[in-house]
């Protein structure tokens, strides 16, 4: 790993982004594992994991931009793509859960029942 030439501050920022991202993702996954009801579990990954990955990608963007000397924005594209698709994934999964009656009689109030 050739990081020796990196300024400390940049290194710190990159590290922070990486670890923050990892933490967000971990929280999302903890939510997925721990929460009681499908619809509650749905929140964790769709938000936390997406953001976690976003942070990580920003860290990576900074890191490689420095490494290569030019702005490397591939990560940004991945991030944008994720942010655009994650809500739709969640939407589709929520639909599937409603269709199957998952969580009916669970902790979520006002369970729609037509």
């Amino acid at each position, binding site marked *: 790993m050739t990081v020796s030439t990196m300024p400390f501050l940049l290194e710190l920022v990159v590290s922070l982004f990486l670890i923050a991202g990892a933490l967000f993702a971990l929280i999302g996954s903890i939510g997925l594992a721990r929460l009681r009801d499908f619809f509650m579990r749905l929140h964790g990954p769709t938000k936390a994991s*997406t953001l976690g990955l976003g942070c990580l990608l920003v860290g990576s963007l900074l890191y490689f931009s420095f490494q290569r000397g030019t702005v490397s924005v591939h990560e940004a594209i991945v991030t944008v793509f994720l942010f655009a698709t994650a*809500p739709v994934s969640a*939407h589709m999964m*929520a639909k599937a859960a*409603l269709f199957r009656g998952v969580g009916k009689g669970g902790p979520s109030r006002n369970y*729609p029942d037509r």
Partner: protein
Amino acid sequence: MTWLQRWLPHPLFTGFLVLLWLLMNQFSFAHLLLGSVLAVVISLVTQPFWPERSRVKYPGKLLVYLGRLLLDILKSNLVVARRILFQSDDLKPGFFTYPLSLTDDFAVTMLASTISLTPGTVSAHYDREGRTLLIHCLHLDDEEALIQDIHRRYELPLQEIFDD
């Protein structure tokens, strides 16, 4: 249909594609040329899949909106993180129906995505006829306040952007 409209059905989006190409590669004249050709060709080829005309009236405002959204996402995540980690047993999840005033599909999608990405809410179903969104909330305290908040914070700006 003008000549330009025929060849550039989604000029804004085509521009976005060119930019994307330049971002993926290097900024150079060759890539600008190649990217433009690709963008135009791809736009034309995919045009049948995207028959609606673009309705973004104020691209600038869209950027502002997206910036605000990013901040909200950060905030919302901290909130959700706290709830997941420390309050998971006290959560009061529930569904509520959000009455839409937006009509444009793209705009509604933007709104629904925004909702899904921000504090403790996930849009679960879009009733196109009844023009409502079914939303699941991780911690549903005050339904009315939440509806007002969404309307003010997101739906109104979107209405402006899309002139809906």
